[in-house]
């Protein structure tokens, strides 16, 4: 009788895990789409920041590597299907041939690496979770995405490696600010949802 009950709970848990995965992946992809619709946020001195790459960092920190990868792949599939979900209302297959497409292809990989690092780093308290989120975002959401971006610029825009690296460095300060914002969001979520498992 107890084996039967254990099986029922186990299979229920597995079914719940599958439905939770479907829901988290789909709804986080929706959140990333919304980040593309939100107007640029102006920092002091009038520096504009767009939010979609912040969505990549948050996906990794909140969902863990596998679900974050799936969320970004789902988002890019929707873009490829013709939905205008990128910031500025861009969408369709044409955007994957543009010089900045390296960054797009880097998003799922960056989210995976962010999630993988977040899973390994300490998260016992909201403060430690925030610090881990900053580190994970900087490696996955910033470094990995920019590496892919540089490769894209070299291959599509035919820039030299030095030119592509210099070009991408312009965006690094803004992305570092996003790492800080990601850490702040993780800190607030850790306090608001104490049972949330960061990093999956």
């Amino acid at each position, binding site marked *: 009788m107890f084996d039967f009950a254990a099986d029922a709970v186990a299979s229920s848990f597995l*079914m*719940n895990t*599958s*439905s*939770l995965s*479907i*829901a*988290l*992946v*789909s*709804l*986080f*992809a*929706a*959140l990333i*789409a*919304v980040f593309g*619709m*939100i107007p640029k*946020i102006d920092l002091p001195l009038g520096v504009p920041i767009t*939010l979609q790459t*912040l969505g990549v960092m*948050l996906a990794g920190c*909140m969902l863990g590597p596998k679900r974050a990868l799936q969320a970004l792949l*789902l*988002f890019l*599939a*929707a873009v*490829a*299907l*013709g*939905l*205008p*979900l990128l910031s*500025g*209302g*861009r*969408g*369709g*297959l*044409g*955007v*994957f*041939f*543009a*010089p900045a497409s390296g960054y797009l292809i880097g998003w799922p990989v960056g989210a995976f690496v962010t999630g993988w690092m977040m899973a390994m780093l300490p998260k016992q308290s909201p403060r430690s979770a925030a610090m881990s989120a900053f580190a994970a975002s900087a490696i996955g959401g910033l470094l990995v995405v920019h590496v892919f971006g540089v490769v894209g610029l070299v*291959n*599509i*825009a*035919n*820039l030299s490696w030095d*030119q592509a690296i210099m070009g991408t460095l312009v965006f690094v300060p803004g992305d570092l600010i996003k790492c800080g*914002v990601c850490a*702040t*969001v993780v800190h*607030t*979520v850790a306090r*608001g*949802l104490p049972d*949330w498992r960061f990093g999956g």
Partner: protein
Amino acid sequence: MKSLYSEQHTWLHAVPAYAKLLFLALLGTGLFLTDQLMVLGASAMVCIAIFATLGWVTATAKPLLMGLVLACLLIAAFHLFMQHPVLAAITVLRLVSTTLMGFALTLTTRYSDLLHVFERVLSPLKSVGLPADRLALQLALMLRFTEHFFILWRRLDDAHRLRTGKPGGFKILAPLTIQMLVAARRVADTLHVRLRR
């Protein structure tokens, strides 16, 4: 959520989705394998001609076309400044050909037809544990909740403006994220009951 697909029928609407995707994949691959200006120039002219035959349908792609023109101008200006005119021409011609055909495919192919092709292409991944048939459900959920979360963001922003006189900015991202996570748990429960997943 309105896609970029145009309901006005053209000759390209009648071409099957898989054929258009295959053409785009072969074109993109082929153009990257050659540096011959004659070939790239001829390809660009053919692609511009194909795009032009779509007529008024291309009007909906105006923002995308502006983005393409801007990208071409920036890249050409940069390479010309570095005194590499041939490289400027090669890059711009490739960009024009592949991007215009990408736009043409998006304007003339239904989202459901493309989704069907994607599911067919991804179906072999089922054997390694990747359920491609979930794609349609996840896309539907994503689209449904994109509008919901955008409305939620507007409400949070309006409430912040009422309280402080300033836009919400970064301050409302954490409450928006928490609302998303809570919504995901409710949706998961509903899916579990409805689909027995």
